[in-house]
C-alpha cells in the first residue's frame, strides 16, 4: 500500500521524525486557514499517487494568503497523469542548506534490510545510482539484530554528509528504521532529507509503502487501503475480494492461481491480442467466485471476449465445470466466453460443459488455442 505524501509525513511524525508543520485539506478556504496558521511562505502540494507533480504544476510556493488561495484553487482538480487532485497538503516552506537522500527497504537478494544514504539528494536515486554509485552509502541490517547506533554513525560518516548534519541524521535514521520495522513498511524513503541553515535535519518529503499483509498488526492501515488508487473495475473487484489488475486490452482474463493468471495474460499477448485485465480467482473455482469474476469483467465496456483458463489441481474438473455453468446462469454475459479446462478430471469437466456450448460459450483443448480463439472473437 503506497501512502500519499501527507499520510507518509504523519506516519513519520508518529515516530518522532521532524517534518514540516502543515495539514491536508480538500478545500481552498481551509488551505488558506492552514497557511495562516503555519506561517508564510508556504508550499501547496498536490496529493496524488504519482510522481512528476512539480512539472505538472502541482507544487507551488505562496508568499501570502492571496497566493495560497490562488494556488490551492488551481491545484485542486488538476489532472496529473490521469490522477485528479482531490486533496492538497499545505506546509510551512523550509530554508534549505543541503539536500540528502535516505531510505530503508528489504533487499530480497541478501534477505536483509538495506539502508541507503546519499549526500546527493533531491534527485531520483536511480539517477545517482547510475551516474555516481559511489555517492550512495549502503548498509545491510540483520533483521534479528536491528540497526545499532554505532552502525548508524559509521554509515552516516561513510555518506560524507556535512559534519553539522551528523547528529540530526543519526537521530532521524534511527527513528526511520524503527518506523520501517514497527510499521511493517516495504519502503521508507526521505528525498530530500534536508539540512537547514540553522543546523537542523528534517524530512522534507515522505515516500512510504506499507505491507498489506501486516494489516492484522495495524488495524488503522485499513484507512490507507481505502485511499489506494484503483479504477472503477479494480474497486469492484477489490470489494469482492478478487485479485484483479486492470489492463488496457479487450480480452477479459480469468484464471486460477497468480502464476497461471500471469501466464494467461502473456499468452493472450503472444497470439496478438491484448488482455483487459489480470484476474486470479484462487485455487478453487466455485460458482460464487466465478460469478463475481464474470460480473466484474462483464462490467468492463472494453471487454469483447472472455478467456477462462482453469487448471484443476485439488479442485476437480467436474466441480470447475459445474461452477462455470452455474455462474453463467446467475450473470447475464454480453461477450463470448472461451474456456480451457485442464488438469484433474478435465475429461469429466469437459463432458459436463459439452451440452452447454454455444456461440457464446466455447471450449478449446489447449491454452494456446483458447487464447487464439478469444483474441479472434475480440476483434
Amino acid at each position: 500500500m503506497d501512502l500519499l505524501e501527507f499520510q507518509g509525513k504523519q506516519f513519520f511524525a508518529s515516530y518522532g521524525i521532524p517534518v514540516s508543520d502543515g495539514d491536508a485539506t480538500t478545500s481552498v478556504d481551509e488551505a488558506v486557514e492552514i497557511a495562516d496558521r503555519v506561517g508564510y511562505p508556504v508550499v501547496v502540494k498536490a496529493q496524488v499517487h504519482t510522481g512528476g507533480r512539480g512539472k505538472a504544476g502541482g507544487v507551488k510556493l505562496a508568499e501570502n494568503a492571496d497566493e495560497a488561495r490562488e494556488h490551492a484553487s488551481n491545484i485542486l482538480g488538476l489532472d496529473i497523469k490521469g490522477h485528479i487532485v482531490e486533496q492538497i497538503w499545505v506546509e510551512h516552506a523550509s530554508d534549505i542548506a543541503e539536500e540528502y537522500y535516505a531510505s530503508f527497504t528489504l533487499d530480497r537478494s541478501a534477505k536483509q534490510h538495506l539502508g541507503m544514504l546519499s549526500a546527493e539528494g533531491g534527485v531520483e536515486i536511480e539517477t545517482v545510482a547510475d551516474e555516481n554509485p559511489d555517492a550512495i552509502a549502503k548498509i545491510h541490517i540483520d533483521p534479528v539484530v536491528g540497526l545499532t547506533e554505532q552502525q548508524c554513525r559509521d554509515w552516516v560518516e561513510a555518506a560524507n554528509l556535512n559534519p553539522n548534519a551528523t547528529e540530526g541524521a543519526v537521530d532521524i535514521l534511527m527513528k526511520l528504521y524503527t518506523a520501517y520495522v514497527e510499521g511493517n513498511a516495504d519502503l521508507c524513503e526521505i528525498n530530500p532529507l534536508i539540512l537547514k541553515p540553522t543546523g537542523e535535519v528534517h524530512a522534507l518529503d515522505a515516500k512510504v509503502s506499507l505491507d498489506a499483509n501486516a494489516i492484522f498488526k495495524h488495524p488503522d492501515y485499513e484507512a490507507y487501503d481505502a485511499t489506494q488508487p484503483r479504477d472503477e473495475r479494480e474497486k469492484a473487484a477489490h470489494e469482492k475480494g478478487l485479485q484483479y489488475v486492470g489492463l488496457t486490452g479487450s480480452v477479459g482474463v480469468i484464471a486460477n492461481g497468480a502464476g497461471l493468471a500471469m501466464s494467461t495474460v502473456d499468452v493472450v499477448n503472444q497470439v496478438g491480442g491484448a488482455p483487459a485485465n489480470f484476474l486470479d480467482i484462487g485455487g478453487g473455482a466455485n460458482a460464487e467466485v466465478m460469478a463475481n469474476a464474470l460480473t466484474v469483467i462483464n462490467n468492463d465496456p472494453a471487454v469483447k471476449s472472455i478467456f477462462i483458463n482453469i487448471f484443476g489441481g485439488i479442485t476437480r474438473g467436474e466441480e470447475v465445470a459445474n461452477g462455470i455453468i452455474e455462474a453463467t446462469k446467475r450473470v447475464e454475459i454480453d461477450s463470448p466466453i472461451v474456456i480451457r479446462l485442464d488438469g484433474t478430471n478435465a475429461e469429466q469437466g469437459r463432458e459436463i460443459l459439452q451440452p452447454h456450448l454455444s456461440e457464446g460459450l466455447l471450449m478449446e483443448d489447449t491454452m494456446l488455442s483458447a487464447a487464439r480463439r478469444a483474441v479472434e472473437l475480440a476483434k
Partner: protein
Amino acid sequence: MSIFADENTKVIYQGLTGSQGRYYGLLNREYGTQVVAGTNPKKAGTDVEGIPIYATVAEAKEATGATASCIFIPAPFVKAAVMEAAEAGLELVVVITEGVPAHDEAYFFNKVKQDFPGTRILGPNCPGLISPGKTNIGITAGHIAKPGGPVGIVSRSGTLTYQALYELQQKDIGVTTCVGIGGDPVPGTSFIDCLEAFEADPETKAVMMIGEIGGSAEEEAAEFIKNNMTKPVAGYIAGVTAPPGKKMGHAGAIVSGGKGTAAAKIEALEAAGALMGENPTEAGELMAKIVAELA
C-alpha cells in the same frame, strides 16, 4: 531418489485441527505421507482421524521421531510456529500459509539460519513439495505427478507447478521431487538450494525451473546453473507482458525500477544454457526433448 523428503519422512502438521490443515493433512496421509502428529495446545490428547494431537512440536517430535513439519497456521502466528519447529530441532519446515508479513519472513529466515542451521524452511506461501509415489507434503494434487524420474521441478508459482507436473505426466515423464518455493519476498528455500540438491541427486537427470517476474532470484539461479550445473535445465518465466509497478497477485511478482523483468530473467537463463519456453506447454515440450536425448 528424491530431495528434502521421501517415504520415510515423518511429518507433524502444525494446524492439523484447523479446516485447511485437516483437509490437506488427511489427503497427504491418503497419498502415503507419514502424517504422524498434529499440534494444538488446546487440543492435546485428542486426535484427528487417528492422528494424535500434541501440545507442542517438541512433544510431538519426542513421541513420534518426526523430522519435518507442515504449517497450516494463520499468518499472524506463523513466525512463532516456525520458530517453535526450528527450536524443536526439525530438519524441514514447510509453510503453506499465505499473507505472512515480509518483515516476519525476513526475521525468521535469518534467526533460523543463525541459530538452527540444520533447519530448512520451505515457503511461506508455497504449495509444498511432492516426491511422487513417496510423499506429498502440502497442497499439490498427488495424482497429477508421475513417480520415478528423471526430472526434478522447482517453481515459484503454485498453479504453474501443477501445470508443469501435468504436462510431464501427459508425456509419460516421471518426477523425482517437485518443490514449490513460493511467491513471497523472502522464501526460506531458494531456486539455488533446489538446483544444488537436484544436481547432487543421482536419480534426477534434468531440472525444470519455473520463475516469475520480480526480484533477482532467477538471475542468481542462472549464475549458479552456468557455474555449477552439469544437468540440463528447461524453464519458463511468467509475467513477460506484466506492466511495471503493478503487483500481479504474488507479493513478490512486481516489476519495479526496470528490475526483475521477465526479459532479463529469460536472457540470463538462456545465457546459462537453459532452454526457455514461451509458455508452460512449450517448456514441457522442451523438457520432453531433453529427456528423449538422455535415453
